[in-house]
């Protein structure tokens, strides 16, 4: 049976979807709405999965938007890697708790679910550091190569 009916507003359960952390999972009849968020180098990527409450099949023909502090941001299907998710990119400060509302319009059905976007303090960006680390690694390898080559050259008496 429909277990998701029991779930309402489960905030900040960490789960990596295409979209990232689950910020909200709620039933707004006749849909089940799940909102994910992920920090990217370009801002916060919000992804929304809309499912049919009866079959849990993904709904792909709805108009989805996010309302946060008076701003309405349209969420578009197929922009991210996972083509079942509606997504939007927003710029939000770190360590913020913001109320938001997801609106889903499909034919004559208009529903919404609300929750609080919770963002923990930003951790140092490891991805960027990983790529920057290539330089010292490259230099280290070059130095090692130089040592190996110099060892081969016979020393003069």
């Amino acid at each position: 049976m429909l277990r998701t009916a029991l779930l309402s507003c489960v905030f900040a359960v960490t789960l990596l979807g295409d979209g990232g952390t689950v910020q909200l999972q709620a039933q707004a009849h006749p849909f089940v709405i799940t909102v994910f968020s992920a920090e990217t180098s370009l801002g916060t990527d919000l992804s929304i999965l809309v499912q049919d409450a009866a079959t849990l099949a993904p709904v792909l023909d709805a108009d989805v938007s996010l309302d946060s502090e008076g701003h309405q941001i349209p969420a578009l299907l197929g922009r991210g890697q996972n083509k079942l998710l509606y997504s939007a990119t927003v710029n939000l400060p770190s360590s913020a708790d913001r109320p938001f509302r997801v609106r889903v319009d499909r034919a004559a059905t208009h529903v919404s679910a609300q929750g609080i976007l919770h963002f923990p303090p930003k951790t140092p960006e490891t991805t960027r550091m990983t790529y920057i680390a290539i330089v010292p690694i490259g230099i280290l390898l070059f130095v090692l190569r130089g040592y190996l080559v110099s060892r081969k050259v016979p020393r003069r008496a």
Partner: protein
Amino acid sequence: MNQAVTAALSSWRFDPPLIATLLLTTLLYIRGWLRLHREMPTRFGPWHLASFLLGESALFLAIASPLDSFASFLLSVHMVQHLLLIAVAPPLLWLGQPFLPLLRGLPRPVVKEALSPFLSAPELRRFANALTHPLVCWLAGTAATVFWHLPTFYELGLQSPTWHRVEHASFLFGSLLFWWPVIQVWPSKRHTSRWLMIPYLISADVVNSILSAYLVFSAQVVYPSYALAPRLWNISALNDQSMAGALMWVPGSVVYLLAAAIITYQALSGKPGIRPSTLIKPVPQFRPSRTATVMERTTVLSTRRAAQITMLLLATLIMLDGFRGPQISPLNLAGVLPWTHWRAIAIIALLTAGNLVCFSCPFTLPRDIIRRFVPQRLRWPPSLRNKWIPAALTIVFLWSYEAFSLWDSPWWTAWIIASYFITATLIDTLFQGASFCKYVCPIGQFQFVNSLISPLEVTVKSPKVCDTCQTHDCLHACKLDLFQPKKSGSFDCTFCMECVTACPTSNVTIAAVVPARPTVFARLTNRTDVAALALLIVLGAFLSATAMTNPVRDWTSDSPLRISLIFGLLLVPALILFTTPHKYVLALVPLGASMWTAHFGYHLLTAGSSLVPAAARFLGVALTQTSGMGTVPDWWPPLEILLLDAGLLLTLYLEWRSAARKFRPFAPWAFLAVLLYAAGLWILAQPMQMRGMVMN
């Protein structure tokens, strides 16, 4: 097919760094395999090629296919992804016997200079031998599988993208080690009897079966994240988990047991070993036929003319739209094509191929036509046979680009292109050779300087053939006075291919070369004008990108005075040039080229699709929606850093060689390079102005 299923199946990950890595590895393997197949057809047969390609495909499927998109929704999908990384890709890659093909696929100087010291180091050989001992390999493979399937660590992978990547890397490398003694990758050292591989595989299968059985028979969801994940298509978390366990158990075991069965069969059949020496066949020398060379020449010339005519047509359209169209840059071809598309494509082509901009230059086409009727009598003044004029023009252009927002003015853009046509035609109608290209054109100089690190070059096939040449037709044909046997690198070469067609022995061709060879740079070290130009282009890369960042943009607020202050920094080269040897200056070119690529690549990605509304308006076609503009894919920022990394490492290498491997002269230039690199990182981390875009 169901719409949701179609959408799910189309959820591929577009990851250019991953695609580029796999593509490069595949190309290197194929290149090496083709050579080895000619020499040792049995040892490197089609079967090896097919195995390697299938292994690469399995890897791509695991990392970039919809499996990755749904791995965190369904454990069963995640398990298929893991199976591909553990049990499918590694054995297939090893069956391709990749070491020799990859080494033979690499350019010889790279193997000799960069890899050979490591490959022949006794310590590293001992380390490799210890690492590939069957006991170590078994432990590495099974430990990775067990460790990452423990709930705590599996959850860690689900919660953090970084740990997820570490998890996948552990699976892949652990499994590569695991399968090493099983496949016995040539030319590896055999540590133990082949019979030992049977308990080796069966014991690994036992571990795999225990893990799988736990997942299949567990009455509760083992990984809490899956209990909370949205249930797609009403598949319960527990059913999904049982399915995942079954997938791990059955196909996983089949792979281990199949390998054990094959080894048993091989050991029982007692096949004699293959001696490589008996398999080497003499390779016939390739000699191009007369017909082939004529075709080659015709193709080269007609390709160039076709490219030039295409560019001429585009330039005409851009000028028409720039003069007569609306003066809204993102809606005008003159505001979009030259600044967003052409610049980015030009630098990318330069770094991945060669000087294709000069190859397809439309400005020289009218010149070539006029020259059929008007003879050139004048010679370019000797005092102007240097790069000072283009250096001054480069400064003027970089300053006026920001001061007058040229990118935002279709009318000015059209005028610049028209002026280019007029100047090129006038100069080259009056003066002999390609005086405009060599001594005036700033675009050409940008190409020449950055082509020092291009991987393709017009060069001779065999220097010995040139030694016997009496006629020097290539020199007579070259409008830039380049003599092929003496030429090194692509500096001053417009890729016009006149030398290719002029050589009577067809000894001139386009060939792959090692980019940024120190010898190429060394030939230019006595040229102050070239050093000045190079330094301008390098500093210009950083200043031009800085001007695009929001903090600098806010400070200058389109004030020509403040912009002049920033671009006044371009005078720094004068101070540097008169106090230092030029060889150190030239070594900065790779860093500058990487910054230009990151900068122009960003514009192409953020505003590339603005061509659609501009072209639609020009053609009078109505558009209902303009979407996808202004978004930068998440793979781009890491790629920008990688570009800068490559630029810095190449620059440091060239500086080191310029300093004759001495630390004292190397240190200040290394410091300057690192400073520029840090500035580049800062620039790329700033919010950028989205130029040339329509915001819906």
